[in-house]
């Protein structure tokens, strides 16, 4: 028997709401939205955690500007360090700069281990940066996380819409709550606007300032991107 599965619910019980930020494909800004959302909610006074489950392409630590000396502490498990007020957990604490070439069962094991040993504090929100698509980790997160709600990110491109519509179909089939769709990187010239059958709760502009603000949360929070994300966060705080 795998002893870890029985303890996961106990580890997650101090969290009020889990929001999985997902996308049909990579490159739509999912990690930036997830990290931005965590920062914005934290700035609004909520207690927030951020869990990076994009094991192949972890990047939330870059957006947060995590310095290398910051590590989780051991206290009857692993206590996530607070980074800019956010309780942060990622496999990069252990892989460092190395690639982690994991096959399906390894991805599952790594996720179960992280969930079994991480001791989150009292949190209003745990934001989970999901891997793109609907592979092992997405299915495991649906199975193991406590009633996650999904926030789906796309760009106004027919390619992104095509992939995200399949993800939405899967989540709907599994009766997973979807908070809404965020359309990222919209430019004034974008004409594509297809119906996904799910409410678009935010349109985020293509923000020229954003790249330079990555790694500097204070500057990040001053961007138009963050301002628009704050509107999104205010909306689902009330929902």
């Amino acid at each position, binding site marked *: 028997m795998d002893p870890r599965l029985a303890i996961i619910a106990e580890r997650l019980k101090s969290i009020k709401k889990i929001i999985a930020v997902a996308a049909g494909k990579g490159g739509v800004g999912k990690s930036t939205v997830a990290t931005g959302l965590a920062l914005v909610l934290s700035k609004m006074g909520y207690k927030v955690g951020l869990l990076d489950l994009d094991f192949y392409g972890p990047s939330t630590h870059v957006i947060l500007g995590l310095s290398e000396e910051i590590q989780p502490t051991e206290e009857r498990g692993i206590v996530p360090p607070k980074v800019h007020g956010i309780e942060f957990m990622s496999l990069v604490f252990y892989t460092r700069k190395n690639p*982690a070439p994991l096959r399906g*069962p390894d991805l599952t094991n790594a996720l179960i281990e992280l969930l079994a040993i991480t001791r989150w504090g009292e949190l209003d929100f745990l934001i989970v940066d999901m891997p793109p698509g609907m592979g092992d980790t997405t299915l495991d997160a649906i199975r193991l996380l406590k009633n996650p709600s999904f926030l789906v990110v796309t760009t106004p491109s027919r390619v992104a819409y095509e992939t995200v519509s399949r993800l939405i179909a899967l989540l709907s089939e599994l009766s997973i709550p979807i908070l809404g769709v965020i359309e990222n990187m919209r430019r004034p010239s974008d004409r594509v606007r297809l119906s996904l059958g799910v409410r678009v709760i935010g349109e985020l502009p293509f923000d020229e300032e954003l790249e330079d603000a990555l790694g500097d949360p204070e500057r990040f929070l001053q961007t138009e991107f963050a301002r628009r994300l704050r509107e999104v966060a205010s909306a689902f705080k009330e929902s």
Partner: protein
Amino acid sequence: MHEWALAEAVIATAKRAAREKKLRRITEITVKLGELQQIERTVFEFALEQILAQEDALVRHAKVVLETERARFRCRACHHEWAFETEHFAPEIAEAIHFVPEIAHAYVRCPSCRSPDFEVIAGRGVWLASLKGEE
């Protein structure tokens, strides 16, 4: 004290299994400690003792038997098999593998062909091997 989290998991799982089997009392829990996770046996035993002392009659007096399982790898590319040796690693790498054994894939390569595409065929981590009790 990351061992504590896994000791809690073992006891929680043993209790769940005992309830499913309708056991009145658990008398013995056998736990396999996969070598790859490098569990500190004395720390793990201490955590189990402390946790059991706080538990109810279902599990409080259970004897816990710990068995170590050697860790072995098999390369998917060339089928070579080999055993895990911690002494090859810097302490911070050994510690990373201790927390999440799959992290081995970031640091271990097949000694025969250097591939990172290997599987852990034995001795990954903590496993509840068997449970004895009274109905």
